[in-house]
């Protein structure tokens, strides 16, 4: 796996250029993203910080192909995601993106194992779902339904589901937002362990600073714009960032 070596190699996994996204009509128009540009390196664990309404989730959705910008583009490996058709976007999400949602978003009628199996990449490992469940320490809960799992357990299943497809990109939208602090902390530890060991490119959106300690890079958004980009403790002014 790439891990920090990839970062050191400075390969760009995903980049966003001049993303603009606004909601509402003329009088009630809200600009969620205001000309945001961002490069994400392979193997990088990026934390996007910002208060509520800063546009961080919107940015994440753009990166994940869940939403389309009003203008600007997202590139994955040089290929523009923004102009893709619905089918291509869906394939993009299926093949390249693993999503971890704040509210877990497990399918209630499926067991933990079945949830993971939904989009698992079984080409290299037919039992990947089992393995992922084992990785997150929930083997004994394989036949439990989400209603029978705690919040932390559900989030771990969600993480396992996201990683089971072996995505290039793991996007986490406030993964601990629905958890208590202790559980959230444990989730973060586990998440970090997994992604570091796998060398995944991870983008985590949060509004809490506690998550930033595990990040390789921290981007701070305010009012739809990047106000701070900090890597390895050094702040990279936005205007100095070379694209």
């Amino acid at each position, binding site marked *: 796996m790439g891990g920090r070596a990839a970062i050191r190699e400075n390969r760009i996994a995903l980049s966003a250029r001049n993303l603009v996204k606004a909601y509402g009509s003329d009088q009630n128009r809200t600009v969620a993203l205001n000309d945001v540009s961002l490069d994400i390196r392979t193997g990088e664990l990026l934390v996007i910080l910002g208060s509520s309404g800063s546009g961080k989730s919107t940015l994440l959705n753009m990166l994940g192909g869940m939403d389309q910008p009003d203008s600007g583009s997202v590139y994955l490996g040089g290929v523009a995601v923004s102009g893709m058709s619905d089918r291509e976007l869906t394939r993009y999400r299926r093949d390249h993106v693993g999503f971890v949602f704040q509210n877990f978003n497990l399918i*209630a009628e499926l067991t933990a194992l079945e949830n993971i199996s939904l989009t698992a990449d079984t080409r290299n490992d037919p039992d990947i779902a089992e393995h992922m469940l084992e990785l997150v320490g929930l083997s004994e809960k394989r036949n439990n339904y989400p209603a029978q799992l705690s919040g932390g357990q559900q989030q771990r299943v969600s993480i396992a589901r996201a990683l089971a497809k072996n995505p290039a990109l793991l996007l986490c939208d406030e993964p601990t937002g629905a958890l208590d602090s202790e559980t959230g902390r444990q989730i973060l530890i586990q998440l970090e362990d997994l992604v570091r060991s796998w060398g995944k490119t991870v983008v985590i959106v949060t509004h809490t600073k506690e998550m930033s300690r595990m990040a390789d890079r921290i981007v701070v958004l305010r009012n739809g714009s990047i106000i701070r980009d900090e890597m390895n403790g050094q702040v990279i002014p936005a205007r100095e960032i070379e694209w």
Partner: protein
Amino acid sequence: MKGSLLRGFFIRFRKMLIAMFLIVVFCSGVVVGFFNTQASLNYTVNRYISDFNVPDAVISTNITESNAEETLLAIPGIAGVESRLTGMVQFYASSGRLLTAYVATLDQEAVQKLYSWVQLDTPTDDYVLIDQYFAQQNHISIGDEILVTSEEEQRPFLVAAIISAPETLFGNKIDGLSRNYSDIGFMYAPVSILARETEKEFSRMMAEWEERHQEFLQVKQEADDAWAQGEQELAGAQQELESRQAEFEQAQQELRGQIRTLTDARVQLMLGRMELDEAGDVAAEHKTKLEEALAKSYGQMLELEDRQADTEEIRNSLNSLLVRLEDARGRLTAARNRLTQSAGTLRVTLTALQEAKSVWDGIHDFSGETYLPEIVQNQADMTVSEIEDKLKDRGITPESLDEAISEVNFGTAQLKQGQQRIQDGIGQISQVYLPEVRAGLEEAEQGLELIALTRESLKTGIATMEDALQSIADFEAQEPENRKILEEKLQEVEDGLNAIYAGLSEGETALAEGREQLDSKKEEALKARQESEAALSEGEESLNEALEELNAWEGYTPLRNEFRITFEPDVADRQAVLDAAAAALGDVVTDSELYENSQLFRKFRDILSPWDTMTVFIPLVILVLVMMVIFLFSSMIVRQSRREIGVLRALGFSLRQVRGLFCMASFLMMIPALAAGIALSMPIKSIVDNAWMNAYHLPFHQSFFDVGKAVLASLGMVVASQAAILLSTIPVSRIQPVEIISRQANIRRPVSEKWTRILRRTKPMLKMSLLSLMRNRLQFFASAVCVTASVAILFFSMSFIVSKDDIIEEMFVRRIHYDCQVYFSAKPTPEQEEGIRTQSWIAQVDSVRTYSAEAVSGHDSVPVTVMALKEEASLLSVPDEHGRIMDLPHEGIVLAIDDARKLGVQKGDTVTIAGVSLTVAGISRQSGNVYSYCSLTQAEALGEPDQYMWLVRLNGDNDQELIGWLKDSENYIMTVITQILSDGINELHAPYDLIGWLIAGFAVVLGLFIIVNTNQTNLQNHKKELSILRAIGFQRREISLHWFSHAVLYFLISLALGLPLGYELSVITLKKVGAASHQFFYVSSPYQYVMTIGILFLFLLLAHLLSMHSLKKWNLVESVRDKE
């Protein structure tokens, strides 16, 4: 606050509310339309029957006297009679075709009434109103001129109107006509159209008048003769009376002398009776006294006898005592003598003993008689010791001897005493007792003598008294007879007097009666004369009036030959009343008929019956459906409003307020929806009305809007909707505010263990669908019910459209179908039989025979008309007891139910017709002029038929060719076109077609709506999970497949439930409908199922496509974040 809440509610759920609005509009339109069609139909039918004066029965006659109405009104059970002139005319239509019409003439008032049914200009005087069907068949239009032909002339008449005449709708025949004729029809016209006939009638009436006039004059003459004779007889009677009076007075005089004599005799006898009474009283008094004395004497006599008896007894006792005393004296004397003897004996004994003793004292030689035993006596040979031994042996010792001597001495002393006593006794008897007894005897004798004397005296007295009593008894014995004789004599005298008086009285009475009778006869004669004169006067007046009428006869208005009868409502046997009415009119009656016997009449009345059923049934179904749909939508709205409801509850809104909000919103939506629905109902009603009117050939409908029913339907809708809303808000009470407004992840309630176990090995996507169904059971159930209802109604509607066609197909295609009936007056010739079958325009010809005969069973008989058909014929319009069309039996006969009842026979029994025994193979419920049916083979035994007929099927519209071919045949009567029967039935059932399409349309719209919305709702409910799948990389195609399987599940369940339900609905409704027509029975067609399933599958596909289209529009981000 509430206003803004409601506004928000309307904005947010506008689509669903619009959908509900449209459903309510449509459903209320249909319901109100149904109700009003029923009201309109009722009104129209009743108005038609009233305006067109549809009677209960009709009597056709060949008379013209108007007083036949009075005769009919006098029949019990008849409430009203109207009469008119009818007849037949021939005319040329404007097309040149020669047609025949049965004409019913109407006055202006009746015409105006009929004109209210059609919009026409005021007609001329020479107009006709032609029956709709007749006009249609012969292409006659309003404004055409027809030429009415009579013997030498043609008169033009204008076709002023085309109407639907009840005579053709209801009457089974009009002088042998039916609706099945094409070239013979019916019309209304003024009387003048029948001028030729009426002129003939006028002549006849004049002749009748003359005849009546002559009869009148004859009667008058007879009356005068009779009066003259009567007067003579009265004079004679007067004379006789007077002579009898004179005789009576003479007899009265003679009888007065007899009266005097008899009166004297009576007085004497009465005096004699008085004396007799007095003597009787005296004798009675004496008798009493004598009886008392006699009783006393008898008493004395008895006493004397007793005394005599006592005295005699004393005497006898004394005599007896005397005898005993003497006897006693004698015995005493004898005893004394015996004692004396005994004493002597004792002395001897003593001597012996002393001798014996002396023996011991020494031995003595003694002889003689001693007491010693013989041993002693034989002492000569014995020694003294021997003698002593022997004496000792005998117990004779000196001691014993001493003892014996002492005893003898004692005995002797006693004896002496005894002797003394006896002597004393004898002395007493002789000196005392005997004298006393004798004295007593003497007294007794004296007493007896005295008693005897006294008795004699008494006897004499008694005898005297008895004689006296006897005399009195004789007198008393004699008295009744004397009295009787006296009374008899008195009675004779009385009788004699009475007889005389009676005779005199009778005579007076007879005379008085004679006078009275004579007076009475005079009065009667006078009265009769007056009446006769009055009757004659009336008759003359009537004749004069009739003559006046005849002379003033321009419009021929008095002519009447058809009498239209209305029965009293409570008449049980209308046929009997009709028969009585026909009998009352007599031989002039040519036909009588109950209209109600007409099948068409019944159908006309009965169109309301199935309609009534459907008007209750279908709106009810619709109401339930509306309720379900509103419940469904409302449930969705409640579900989607959970958060808002939670917030309201958290803010302090009560459950009632929350529910009230929903109810208010529903109510606000319902009101304009109902108004729009009522507006929509008008064209629906109009369409259905027209269909009914066309089917039953009513001229046009009288539009009638039943406000009450519209309000009722609307209220029903409102109530149903409010109920549905309230039901759907039940879960509101379970909504806890804190759960809803919390930002905690909403975790769905866990799936039951049972189902998770069952579906353990199911593929995840299918499992997802099934478990989500289980989770939302209520919604699934509601959705399934709605879809099921759609399926059922659609299937049900197919029944109307599909089955009806199958029935007609069954009736007219599978069975033998004839276009014409050809009537012959005589058996068709072999040339006719062969020739017709060679015609190119003939498809089939079958022979029919009809026979008039008497059907007999036991002692009952009834006239029947038997129609004989070929073996495999079907009996069209002949229903059996189950309402099914019958097949002709191979053997036996099918009887009409009325005939069967009269004969008291049932299926399987035997009846004799024209001497032939036939089994009753079936009983038909055909009414009206009914036939019995049998095969031609069976009918051969019935003899010569009354009528011959052909049933003809043509290759095309060739009825005119047929008529042309037969026209000149001598035995040909007429042709009846029957193909219109199937057309008629088609028309009859056109409304059902329409209803079927309406319901089908309703079912299609509703079904589509329900299925689409159910699908959309389910989609919304699964929005989050589907979005999750999209988010994690599932393509739309994959989700579409998954979602389609979900929908197919609903579809299959709804089909499984809805098809049987729809089937049952169809059977129930069509049975009800079919009951009215007697020809409907339910036929289930595979096409019905195919149509239903096919239509529903199309809906499903459409719904799915719409769902997937919606899916495309989802904002993935929002959907994923959506709280459940």
